[in-house]
Each structure stands twice: as structure tokens, then as C-alpha cells.
């Protein structure tokens, strides 16, 4: 049973924290985290939007430029994860943020991603999937990231004025492919084009006279009914809402989400039986993510040993900081480390986010860098007076193999013992 406590903390959570007791009843501990998340304080949307609009000039006007603002948000978000008492909820928030990737790489989203996480993702992780989908697609970060703000219906007043063209397919395509149905979901180019028309007019406010965030612009909206997956979608903002709710409840969407969740919580090759169970919960509850999260905890496959998932760089950094009892002062270094280790925060290269399989992260140079970087938290832990052997007991317990345990005991210094703990193969798994 002891190992179930460690599995709960490592596989479902972000790794045990040094000096804290592990849960006696791991399932209860996990299920208790499934509750409406506490509101996270943060910068209001107006500040983020102003920074986005002003860019480098924001500093001259006494504000934060987008780079500064993102750094502040990233530090706060990371600190939250390092200190979290509800690490299962924190992991789920990260999972959904990655599912709905917004990257600072494009679309002036830099100043908005923190707000996106706080307002579009976190409040919905135990709500309905369709509500999260709606919040995501209506958030300015996603609208800008996938270029929908100026997509114009060819037959809208704006489209008529500029004669033809005007559509931008990007958001529509990625919602179908990456957020809901997946390519196996059976849609055609015609569906992409129609859905892009449905989403014309989904834009953002641009000046003080307009709404702060999402804004529907009838002037650019394609008039008339559209046909998506054979269903008629009415004209107007309501059409987009109806289309998103419809997509969120497609069996193909449930299958896709179930498979991704099982890949995250069970293994790189999701067992079909486990996928079917999660998919059934999606279907039965209409996409209730609290029920889905409970079902994940109840999957027998998720408790199998040895732990088969490879920690991503983010997982690794979080686990190392928690294992070494790091405080808030270690957080800037952690944000730097994620970049060094190949997973810079909020900067996925493409809209499908960071990969979730061992093959993508078992990269030789990245593994070398994990060891390089772990020297710092290992050293700091020793400076704080932590002893490697008890820390190893807390952090890995029975999951630590005999060979690694012996190497830690025999290390010539506490510092090296701590580094071995953070670098041994067992610590790379979750």
C-alpha cells in the first residue's frame, strides 16, 4: 500500500515534497482534490490587453511590456505548482492548458497566456468540457494565436466591400483537429471551410469603446446557415456557440479526449479498455470533467508498476524542486531550466502542444542537461540541511531500486547523493 501513496503523489501529482507526509489513503486524497478550484488572483484582462497593444511602449507608460508581464505570470504559475497542496488538480490544469495550447511564438499572445490559464482553463478543469471549450475559443489569447480576429465572411458587409476572400481557416481547423474531433473524427475540408465561416466575426475589442476581451463583429460575419458535420448551424454569434457545444459532445471528441487522458495517466500506448471506460464516462455525463477525473483515479491500469511515463522537463523540474523543499526563491531558476531542458514555458512550437510520450523526451542531450541543472537544487537542498537518504525515502520510497539506493548511500558527499537521487532513472518516471 505504501507504494500506492507514492504513485498517487508521482503519477497523479507533481511529486512528493520533502518533509511532508504522504497521504495514508491515496485515492481519498486524490478525490478530495476534485472540487471547484480556488480563484487565482492575477492581473486583470485590461492590463494584459493594454500590454499586448502597447508592446515595448508599455514600459514608457508605466506598465509592463509583454515579456515582463509573461515572466511575472509564468513565475506565479510555477510557484503555484511548486507549492501546491492539490497537485492532481494542478496536473490537470497543465494537461488542459497543453491540450488548448497557446504559445508565445505567434499572434501577440505573450501578454495573454497567463490570463488564459487563469480564466479559460483553471475554472473549468472540473466543469463541463464544452464550457472549457467555449471559454478557450472566446479568449483573446486563442483568437489571436490562431488568427481569427480578422477572418471575414466573403458575403458579409465587410467581405462585400473588399470583394471576395476574407476567411482565415486556422482556428476552425485546429478546433476540429486538435481540440475536439481529431483527424480520425471524420470531417472534410468542406467542414473546415464551413466552420471557419461560422466563426467569422469572433474577434476581440480593439479600442476603449469596444469590449475588453471577446467581441462579436456582425459586420464581418458570414450571413446565412452553415452546414457542419451535416448539421445546420444558424447565423450569428449563437451559431458559433451551438457549433462548439455540438463538437464537444461528439463521440469522436470523447474518444479523442479519453485517449489523451489515458495516455497521460496510464501509458504512452493507452490500453483500449481504459480508453473505453473514460470515453463512456464522457458520454454518460455529457463531458463532466469532475466525473472523468474521478474515473481516471479509479482506473486500475493507472496504478500499475513500474511507472512507465517519462517525466517531461516540466514534470522533472517541478518534482526536483518539490523533492528538495525549494521555496519561492528557486522559481526563476525553474523557469529558466525548462527552457534549458527543451520545454520552454508556454512556448510549444506548434498548436498541438508539447508531446506526451517517452520517445519525444528521452533525448540524449536533454538528459545530460537534467543532470547539469539538478546540481543546483541538489546543492541547495544540502545547504538547507536535508539528508539524502530520508529525502529519497519520502520522494521515491519503495519505487527506488536497490542499485540506485545503494549508489545514493555510497555517494562521497551529501551533495552528490542528492544529485544522484534527482538524476537516477526512477526519478525520471511518473
Amino acid at each position, binding site marked *: 500500500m505504501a507504494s500506492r501513496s507514492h504513485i498517487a503523489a508521482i503519477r497523479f501529482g507533481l511529486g512528493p515534497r520533502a518533509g511532508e507526509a504522504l497521504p495514508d489513503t491515496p485515492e481519498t486524497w486524490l478525490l478530495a482534490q476534485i472540487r471547484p478550484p480556488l480563484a487565482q488572483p492575477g492581473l486583470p484582462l485590461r492590463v494584459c490587453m493594454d500590454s499586448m497593444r502597447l508592446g515595448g511602449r508599455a514600459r514608457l507608460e508605466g506598465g509592463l511590456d509583454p515579456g515582463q508581464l509573461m515572466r511575472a505570470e509564468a513565475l506565479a504559475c510555477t510557484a503555484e505548482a511548486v507549492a501546491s497542496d492539490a497537485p492532481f488538480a494542478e496536473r490537470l490544469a497543465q494537461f488542459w492548458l497543453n491540450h488548448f495550447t497557446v504559445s508565445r*511564438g*505567434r*499572434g501577440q499572445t505573450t501578454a495573454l497566456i497567463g490570463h488564459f490559464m487563469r480564466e479559460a482553463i483553471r475554472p473549468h478543469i472540473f466543469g463541463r468540457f464544452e464550457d472549457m471549450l467555449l471559454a478557450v475559443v472566446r479568449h483573446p489569447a486563442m483568437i489571436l494565436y*490562431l*488568427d481569427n480576429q*480578422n*477572418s*471575414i465572411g466573403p458575403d458579409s458587409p465587410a*467581405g462585400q466591400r473588399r470583394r471576395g*476572400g*476574407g*476567411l*482565415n*481557416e*486556422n482556428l476552425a*481547423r485546429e478546433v476540429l*483537429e*486538435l481540440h475536439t474531433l481529431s*483527424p480520425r473524427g471524420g470531417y472534410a*475540408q468542406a467542414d*473546415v471551410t464551413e466552420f471557419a465561416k461560422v466563426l467569422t466575426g469572433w474577434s476581440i475589442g480593439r479600442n476603449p469603446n469596444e469590449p475588453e476581451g471577446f467581441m462579436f463583429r456582425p459586420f464581418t460575419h458570414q450571413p446565412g446557415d452553415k452546414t457542419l458535420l451535416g448539421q445546420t448551424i444558424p447565423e450569428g454569434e449563437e451559431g458559433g456557440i451551438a457549433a462548439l457545444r455540438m463538437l464537444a459532445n461528439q463521440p469522436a471528441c470523447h474518444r479523442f479526449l479519453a485517449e489523451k487522458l489515458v495516455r497521460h495517466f496510464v501509458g504512452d500506448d493507452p490500453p483500449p479498455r481504459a480508453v473505453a471506460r473514460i470515453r463512456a464516462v464522457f458520454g454518460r455525463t455529457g463531458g463532466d470533467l469532475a466525473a472523468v477525473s474521478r474515473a481516471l483515479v479509479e482506473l486500475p491500469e493507472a496504478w500499475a508498476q513500474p511507472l512507465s511515463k*517519462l517525466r517531461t522537463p516540466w514534470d522533472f523540474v517541478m518534482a526536483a524542486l518539490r523533492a528538495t523543499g525549494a521555496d519561492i526563491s528557486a522559481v526563476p531558476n525553474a523557469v529558466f531550466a525548462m527552457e*534549458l531542458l*527543451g520545454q520552454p514555458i508556454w512556448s510549444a*512550437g*506548434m*498548436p*498541438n502542444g508539447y508531446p506526451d510520450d*517517452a*520517445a*519525444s523526451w*528521452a*533525448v*540524449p*542531450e*536533454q*538528459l*545530460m*542537461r537534467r*543532470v*547539469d*541543472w539538478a*546540481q543546483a537544487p541538489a546543492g541547495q537542498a544540502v545547504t538547507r540541511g536535508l539528508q539524502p537518504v530520508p529525502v529519497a525515502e519520502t520522494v521515491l520510497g519503495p519505487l527506488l*531500486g536497490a*542499485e*540506485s539506493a545503494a*549508489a545514493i548511500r555510497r*555517494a562521497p558527499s551529501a551533495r*552528490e547523493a542528492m*544529485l*544522484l537521487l534527482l*538524476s*537516477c*532513472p526512477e526519478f*525520471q518516471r511518473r
Partner: protein
Amino acid sequence: MRHLPSISRRATLLGLSGAMLFGRTRLAVAEVPGDARLVVVILRGALDGLYAVQPYGDAALRELRAPLVLPEPGQEGGLLDLGGHFGLHPAMPKFAAMYAANQAMVLHAVAGATRSRSHFDAQDSLESGADHRLSSGWLNRALEAMPEAGRARRGLALGTDVPLLIRGSVPVGAHALRGARPPGSELLATLARLNAADPVLGPAFNEGLRARGFSAEVLGGLEPPPRGANGFAALAEAGGRLLASADGPRVAAMELGGWDTHLAQPNLLPPRLAELDNGLETLRQGLGDAWPHTAVLVVTEFGRTVRVNGTNGTDHGTGTVALLAGGAVRGGRVLANWPGLTDLFENRDLAPTRDLRAVAKALLAQHLKLPDEAVAKAFPGSEAIRPEGGLLR
């Protein structure tokens, strides 16, 4: 006269000296890898081939995408002429110089094995060398047929990731910019031992040690290079030097993102093209004397819509360009069965008339001189697609 490199204590611990001796022995029994070098660069996000290499001789071009058309060659800010019908974007003068020296060519109206307009499906297909995702990449399967003879692995991944293209059963080396102070060698040796039993981490950890040992020896003091805009060029330069080493790798994979120009393409794309151009030039410089034996293939997952979308960008399309550079290439021409712009694929995209697999197969067969079975294994299920003739000197 070159002195034998001194083998450091660390290298000894990592088994590098053993690998070297083993390598020399194998060289003696004539399992010599050829001199040929192959570099494959993946442009992730889908490069608009019609923008990078504009068919200014096609009357329909300006009609379909006027905001993206540059002035004709000879005019101010105009295209760099590629022989009368096509012009190269002026952000790529270095590639143009290679082209003028008959060391670079353009393949136009090309596409991979799939017609998916999903970035991720199409990249998987491009890297797998098949119409669907496989668990290994075609470049790695090609490595299966190449002897492991030097101190380095035959294959090299440049960057902090190893792309699917070069993942597979053959171990590959890796080199990335920016190092940090490494821990002591005893500790690394212990970790190598602890990791050995792990089927995923064990090989990767050893590979990391091996690659670092080799890179440190070949590159000497070249650390740490600049970040940001120069990252790709610096990485290409370092990669070129590693490939140039006589017992270094022969095949390398690189990637460069930022091509998904749904928006403001005329502003966003020229800097990306310039970055690519600089990287190809620094790769050439890094390769030095090995450049005459080199072919560099630059590919992207698909092209973009011929017409401009509503936001001065382009959406996901089909046909695009591939670039081929290197001293081994019979360059100075644009290879295209030009489909014209009056009859578009699905009334939106440049119609593809050449399969990228034909180009890649030619590089494996005629450049790396791999046997037919090896080429077939790299590109399964593509018997009907013959290697393109005449790409190489």
C-alpha cells in the same frame, strides 16, 4: 601532421577511447563509410513555396495573389532570377549564390505522401517516409544500411530535440547549443550504470555522454554560441564542423519552425527565409572541405493556399518547394513539371507534380549509395515511385 587527440580521463570513463579503437579496427577491414554527407532540414509549419520561389513567368500569379508577389528580377526589391520563369525571394541571397555556382537547385510543385492539410499528420508522414505515421523515421532506417565506423554515430540530430525523421532503432548522436557546467565524471559513470537497465533512458543517456565527448573534441572552444535569431545559423555551423570530421557523422537532421503564416505573411516570412539562408551558408562554411561531398535537402510538410486569405496570409495547402544544396548537387536549375496556376488542386492549392519521396530516394541511392533494399525499407510501400534521376553530379 595531426596529433592524436589526447584522451581525457573523462573520455576514458565514458568508453570513448574504446569506441575509437574499435572504429579504427573496423576501418581497417574496409567497412569505410563513404565521404558523402546528407543533411535534411525540416521547415515546420508549412512554407509557402510560391512565395519563396515565385513563378513570375506564370501570368496567373499576380491575378491570384497580388499582395504576395514581388517585383520581377532586375527591379528594385525584386526577385533573384532563377533562369527565366522562377525568381527567388531576395531574402535568400546566399542560396542564390550557391545556385549561381551550380551548387543549389529548387524543386517546385512537390508534395509528400499524404494530402492531409493537418500539420501534424503531414509532418509525421514526411518524417516517417510513408503515408501514415511510423514509429521510426526514413533517415534512421536509411542509417541501418550504413556502417558504424568512426568514433561518432553515423547519424546526428542537431538541436535540443530528436525529430521523428531520425528516430528509430539506430542510435544517433545529438548536438545542441548552450552547455552548462557538467558534473564530475565518476558521478556520470554511476548514472550511466544505473540507467543501463532502463530500455528508454539507458540508450539515450549513453548517447548523450557519447555525443558530448565527441562534440567537445571536435568543436574545441566553440561554446556557448549566441541565442535567438542566430541560433539556427550557429547550430548549422557547429553541425557542419561535426559532419566534416573524417570519423564524424555522415547524416544529420535539423529543424526550423515559424512558417505557419496565416497572417501578415509579407512581414513575417522574409526574416524566416533570411534565417534559413544564413543557416545554409554557415552549414556550408562549417562543412568546409566536405562541402563538395554534401547534399542538403530542405523540406516542409505542405504548401499554402495560392490565394491570399482574409488576413494577408495563406492557409494550409498542398504543393510547395523543396530546396537542394551542396557541392554534390547538380544545381543551377529549377526542376518542375509546372502544373500552372490556372488549374489548382481542389481549386485552392498548387497542384503537386513531384513526390518528395522520389527526391529523398535518389539521395539515398545515388548520393549515399545505399542498396535498393535499404532504400525500399526507408520508404515502404512506394515501389511505384522511382528515385529522381540526375540530381547529383
